[in-house]
């Protein structure tokens, strides 16, 4: 079976059904037994400068990152699609509407941008859709039909998915979509019969466990539920909103509730209140909302109340680039907020980790009685991967670290200073454990006390507690053949997929290169990292931020300056860029 590795893009204006079309492609290909990694980007205006692009990389071997080049572009809006032309590979295939409502001048046309070797499939999407279903609403499905037919994807594969997706929306919608799809499919067969390319040869039997398509957000939502989440408080913000929407759909059935608060300040407050009362709760937000939360987060640190906060990072300070990806909240997550306020920060690098680390966050939050921040990002949250349905073991979920009833010996000290720094936790309603939690500096019993000795003791205790958590945190994972390395690449979050692809191809070219994945951002495994760094002559840290925030955090460990590779394009890190840098470093190393 030939190696399939195709990147398909759907590009349109928001409102064109771009995202929906991309989703259907992913579902169908996943059903067909391919591995899929997909990433959509949509605009801050619903129809404003509203470009929507879905990118799906489809292959029959495991996929860890997006390709830089696009092989198939389905344009639902040529003016928007023009911007995608530079990313097209050679001999790429273009699907576009050949009978738009108005005439286009050469300098505004998509086709005029293309190289002659580009393979054009112009079809009157609007007309086909309208003629078949009486409305242009299904034109994205029509485009999909053309695509499916031309790329030799089985007809019923897509139909199956469409039915699955739309049957809940009622017969009318379903039929509109099916008709539009079929019309496109048939039109393509009729008019391009001699240009069918059997790209997607579906393996007769799909091997391995049944795979499901999950986005980072869905994985986080599912994990929270599996971890026993009862209450979710949130406020709509891109790109975290889908988590709330996922939970709103699934939580009520399990007796939980999703409550949309008036803002992030209220959301985090309610989460703390809920944990204080012994119920697992969560909130998810992005940079701007996270900033609002910091004061209350530090309140959680101070009052030693657990909390789980998902920060789906987006671009830039303030409102910034709401629909772009960036890894620039690391400093805010680790250091943000008033005072010395150590907290646990974890950053998953793929959808599977989104699931497992979210589950883990609840355990850690309750065991160490402190807010835990899960640092995701736009790309990780919105990317879709297909993987075996993740499950969490009992041991992963269990443990609230609450004192058993009637276990009281002597008087109860909520903030008792212990070796681990972890104090006995009790919940309102438990007999004989009455205490007050406060954000003021306090004694071991929780009485406000500003005395120098106390503040030093307590601050030290809270830090000791967090450092101690290291043992429970996922240790860095190395990808290399061991031994001395010319270049060691360290990365975190969504960028690590690109790093892994770059490192792998570098190694395939015989370069002595290794990758180190860091998921525990704070506290971090200093000794493990040092050991790795000592084996590398150069350390490269690619990050989607300008300052090199991870490098700032761990750079000091290396004997010489680490090499930073920073990007703030708002787009996922292209493996090629990393590979280029690696090769450069190997070269200068040799000279």
């Amino acid at each position, binding site marked *: 079976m030939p190696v399939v590795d195709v990147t398909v893009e759907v590009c349109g204006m928001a409102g064109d059904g771009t995202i929906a079309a991309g989703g259907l492609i992913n579902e169908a290909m996943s059903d067909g037994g391919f591995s899929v990694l997909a990433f959509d980007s949509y605009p801050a205006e619903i129809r404003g400068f509203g470009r929507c692009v879905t990118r799906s990389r489809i292959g029959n071997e495991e996929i860890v990152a997006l390709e830089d080049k696009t092989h198939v572009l389905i344009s639902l809006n040529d003016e928007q699609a023009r911007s995608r032309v530079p990313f097209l590979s050679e001999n790429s295939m273009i699907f576009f*509407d050949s*009978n738009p409502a108005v005439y*286009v001048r050469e300098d505004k046309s998509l086709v005029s941008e293309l*190289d002659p070797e580009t393979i054009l499939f112009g079809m009157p999407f609007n007309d086909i859709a309208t003629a078949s279903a009486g409305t242009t609403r299904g034109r994205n499905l029509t485009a999909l039909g053309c695509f499916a037919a031309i790329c030799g994807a089985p007809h019923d594969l897509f139909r199956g998915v469409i039915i699955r997706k739309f049957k809940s929306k009622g017969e009318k919608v379903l039929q509109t979509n099916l008709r539009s799809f079929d019309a496109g499919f048939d039109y393509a067969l009729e008019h391009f019969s001699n240009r069918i390319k059997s790209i997607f040869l579906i393996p007769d039997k799909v091997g391995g466990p049944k795979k499901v398509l999950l986005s980072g957000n869905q994985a986080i939502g599912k994990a929270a539920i599996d971890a026993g989440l009862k209450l979710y408080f949130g406020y709509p913000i891109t790109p975290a909103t889908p988590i709330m929407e996922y939970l709103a759909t699934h939580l009520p059935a399990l007796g939980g509730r999703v409550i949309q608060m008036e803002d992030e300040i209220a959301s985090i407050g309610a989460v703390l209140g809920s944990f204080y009362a012994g119920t697992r709760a969560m909130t998810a937000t992005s940079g701007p909302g996270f900033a609002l939360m910091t004061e209350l987060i530090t309140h959680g640190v101070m009052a030693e109340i657990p909390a789980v906060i998902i920060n789906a990072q987006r671009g830039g300070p303030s409102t910034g680039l709401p629909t772009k990806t960036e890894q620039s909240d690391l400093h805010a997550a680790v250091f943000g907020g008033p005072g010395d306020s150590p907290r646990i920060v974890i950053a998953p690098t793929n959808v599977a980790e989104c699931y497992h680390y979210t589950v883990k966050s609840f355990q850690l939050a309750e065991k160490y009685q402190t807010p835990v921040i899960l640092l995701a990002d736009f790309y990780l949250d919105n990317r879709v991967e297909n993987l075996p349905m993740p499950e969490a073991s009992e041991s992963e979920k269990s443990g609230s670290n609450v004192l058993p009833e009637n276990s009281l010996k002597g008087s109860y000290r909520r903030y008792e200073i212990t070796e681990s720094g972890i104090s006995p936790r009790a919940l309102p309603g438990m007999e004989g454990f009455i205490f007050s939690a406060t954000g003021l500096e306090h004694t071991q019993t929780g009485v406000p006390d500003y005395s120098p000795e106390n503040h030093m003791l307590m601050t030290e205790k809270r830090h000791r507690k967090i450092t101690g958590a290291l043992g429970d945190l996922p240790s860095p994972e190395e990808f290399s053949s061991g031994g001395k390395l010319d270049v060691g690449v360290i990365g975190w979050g969504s960028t690590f997929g690109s790093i892994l692809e770059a490192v792998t191809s570098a190694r395939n070219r015989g370069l002595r290169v290794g990758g180190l994945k860091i998921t525990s951002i704070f506290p971090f495994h200093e000794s493990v990292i040092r050991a790795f760094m000592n084996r590398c002559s150069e350390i490269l840290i690619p990050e989607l931020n300008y300052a090199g925030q991870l490098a700032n955090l761990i750079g000091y460990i290396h004997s010489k300056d680490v090499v930073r590779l920073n990007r703030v394009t708002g787009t996922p890190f292209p493996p090629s860029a990393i590979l280029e840098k690696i090769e450069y470093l190997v070269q200068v190393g040799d000279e």
Partner: protein
Amino acid sequence: MAQEHCVIIGNGPAANQAALTLRENSSDARITIVGQEPFPHYRPHLLPEYIAGRLSQEDLCVNTPAFYKECGIKVRLGQKVVHVDFNKRELVLDHKEVISFGGLIIACGGKQRIPEHLQVFDDLMLTLKTPADAAQWIEQLSQVDSVLIVGGDLTSLSLTKALLSLEKRVIFMLNEDSFWPVPLCNELSEKIKHMLTERGVEVIKAGRIKRVTRVSDRSIEVETDNKTLRVGILGAFFGMTPNVKFLARSGLDIERGVLVDEYLQTRFDLVYAAGDCAQVYHPTIKDYWVSIGYQNAINLGKIAGLNLLGGMLSVDASPESIFFVDGIIVNTSWWTEF
């Protein structure tokens, strides 16, 4: 002129020759080729060889895409011109893109000619003009072993050779209309008949075709005045007719082709026509002729290119290669190959 946008409609020999000529003589002109077919410029007369499997598609191609990039010639493939507005000096592509031009060379070539009375059977007949057609032949030939060729023209002869080399049974119906572009005078008809039968082709006279029906996916029934034949493929070869329908409403003089003077100029400034689609009036022969064939096309393309840049070259009438066919005079450079 030199700085303006020169658009060339068509991507055949004439079109490409014109483009290259323009480039050679004007370094800064913006040049665009608009080709209706998705294929890069190829040698149509080699298609039978390709069907016979003696050539690959690459062998058919003349230049690489890279070559055009270097020359700074923009090539648009698979894009069809549907209308030309000579007053606004704009042309419209079928996906509704509007392109303005300073100079225009129409070299859109010819398309397969099917006599009106046979047009109802269009979808049951194979023709041979483009690689796409060739692909169809290759696909269908794999399933059938007999081919009936009606009409007959110069392509059909080289195709016949190819078919024989593939050990197919070939029947040739010589008397369908005139043999094109050469008038089928007895002497020539005998010559061809002899040539074919020698190679093992059955040459028959069967009068007009009345009915064509598909009896199974591997066989077609052809009913004529005096015969009923069952064959695998029906190949129709009535030569070319200039492919100028899209100019119908444009105000350009269209007869069989685009009417031009011996300088290949139309009634409009800086608008020229070359190749199979041009119907040239030539003073020396006092008549119009449509030139057919690779070499002619190249010559005309060159002249159109030079004249567009202000030259005053006139086409030579090469009288020895002129024939009177179907009410027009045809000038071909192919027939001499036989």
